[in-house]
């Protein structure tokens, strides 16, 4: 049966038998880079179209419906437009930092992709501190945002970047604590081990209430970390024109825009991996007939199904809730999410020690 695992293994073996080890490794690097860039561009097109359609349906509108059937080529047309537009740099901007910032944001997003498992045994780099790697790298993107805001030499950009900095730094805490809850339960930082530990049920079912609370807090925190509404103060169109990317145009703006959607995808993959079992099919205990039936669905479809469900939930948030004020935003984190996730972590630890989970 052709699965992503078999294809990857076949290419790997073919490369190592045809070329010597160094060349084969370099070729593998190239293939991985092309695949990652390809995934990013496809994700950008698909997610932006999905967002526009979801928002339209929630607001009783039609959404894009002119380019192609049901408007499916709208984002392709938009991308072409952005590509041919001039990428301007303001006169008094710090030109080096200004031009570097979009690439930092994009590179941070690409780095997080490394330890994520997309299908059974289909992973770029299965390091044994995968979860730590993900949380560490996800804080790098804030540097790119601060850089963009500072280098633009524009008060709106600076304000947006500062807000974004305060927001990402604070929400990382509760996102990290809810990730640790699952690390405690599965007793590993390695992504593949965490997924294996969910073979007899996903953590959201096995972990009882602490896992559900951690999941809810994780979703709230990553919504804030990706600067999505209702936490989009960094952009806040009504107050700051466009926040940190006010001065960007053309392809540099497109990179920020793309990074936003790729980041949503990545945090949803992480959420799906930790709480919803990653590529693991829906298994219930030792009910073998049901489990085998579920195994017939390819593992990559399971992961993408779960991820797109989470993405839909985050889009649902965006088109339902009004934007928070900056003090409300920090109150929510420091007075509610952080204490709750700390107590929740304590509960989860007690549960893991006493072996109350399945």
């Amino acid at each position, binding site marked *: 049966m052709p699965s992503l695992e078999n294809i990857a293994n076949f290419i790997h073996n073919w490369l190592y038998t045809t070329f010597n080890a160094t060349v084969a490794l370099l070729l593998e690097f190239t293939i991985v880079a092309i695949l990652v860039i390809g995934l990013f561009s496809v994700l950008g097109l698909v997610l932006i179209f999905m967002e526009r359609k979801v928002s*339209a349906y*929630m607001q009783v509108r039609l959404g894009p*419906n002119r380019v192609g059937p049901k408007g499916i080529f709208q984002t392709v047309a938009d991308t072409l437009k952005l590509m041919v537009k001039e990428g301007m740099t303001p006169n008094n901007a710090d030109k080096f930092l200004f031009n570097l910032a979009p690439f930092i944001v994009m590179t941070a997003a690409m780095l997080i992709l490394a330890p994520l498992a997309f299908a059974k045994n289909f992973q770029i780099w299965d390091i044994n501190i995968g979860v730590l790697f993900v949380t560490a790298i996800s804080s790098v993107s804030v540097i790119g945002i601060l850089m963009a805001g500072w280098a633009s030499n524009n008060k709106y950009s600076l304000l947006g970047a500062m807000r974004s900095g305060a927001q990402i730094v604070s929400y990382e805490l509760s996102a990290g604590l809810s990730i640790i809850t699952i690390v405690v339960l599965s007793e590993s930082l390695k992504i593949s081990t965490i997924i294996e530990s969910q073979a007899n049920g996903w953590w959201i079912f096995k972990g009882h209430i602490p896992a559900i609370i951690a999941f809810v807090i994780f979703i709230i925190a990553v919504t804030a970390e990706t600067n999505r509404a209702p936490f989009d103060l960094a952009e806040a169109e009504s107050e700051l024109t466009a926040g940190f990317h006010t001065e960007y145009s053309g392809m540099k703006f497109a990179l920020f825009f793309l990074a936003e959607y790729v980041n949503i995808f990545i945090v949803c993959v992480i959420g799906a991996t930790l709480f919803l079992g990653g590529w693991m099919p829906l298994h219930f205990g030792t009910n073998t007939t049901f489990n085998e039936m579920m195994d017939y669905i390819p593992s990559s479809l399971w992961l993408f199904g779960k991820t797109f469900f989470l993405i839909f939930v985050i889009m*649902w948030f965006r088109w339902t809730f009004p934007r928070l004020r900056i003090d409300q935003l920090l109150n929510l984190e420091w007075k509610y999410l952080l204490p709750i996730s700390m107590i929740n972590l304590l509960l989860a630890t007690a549960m893991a020690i006493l072996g109350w989970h399945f």
Partner: protein
Amino acid sequence: MFLKEYIQDIYGAVKSLLIGMRRTGYYFTNHKEIITQQYPDNKATLNLSERFRGEVVMIHDENNEHACTGCTACELACPNATIKIITQFDISPDGKKKKALNKFVYHLDLCTMCNLCIVACPTDAIKMANTFEHSVFDRSKLTKILNNPDSKIRAGIE
């Protein structure tokens, strides 16, 4: 007690957020009534409100007669000099001179559709029309003479 209020806060917040999400979720799953007007396609069936203000027109009846006395009340009411009334003196049958309308000049490019001229008009000679496709290639085409050529004032209007 502090802890009780804290938990009540969280409960209330989660509940109200879920109510909001249920509403948008309902709209998402029940995608029937669409408010989008696909404008150039539905030109024939376009349903504009009675009160929509597109441009000022003068009402003419079938005898090509209007109700404008040339009193310039609309010109005075206009906040940005959109209307210019050019009057003339007619000689009435009994030999008296009488002020009457010669040209009702209307600058559509200056008009803000504020409706003050229609309110000011003592004889209801002008009204707001529903038309809104005003694009032209030459700005001078936006300066319109509202009274039809050879039209005259309806008898009995003072």
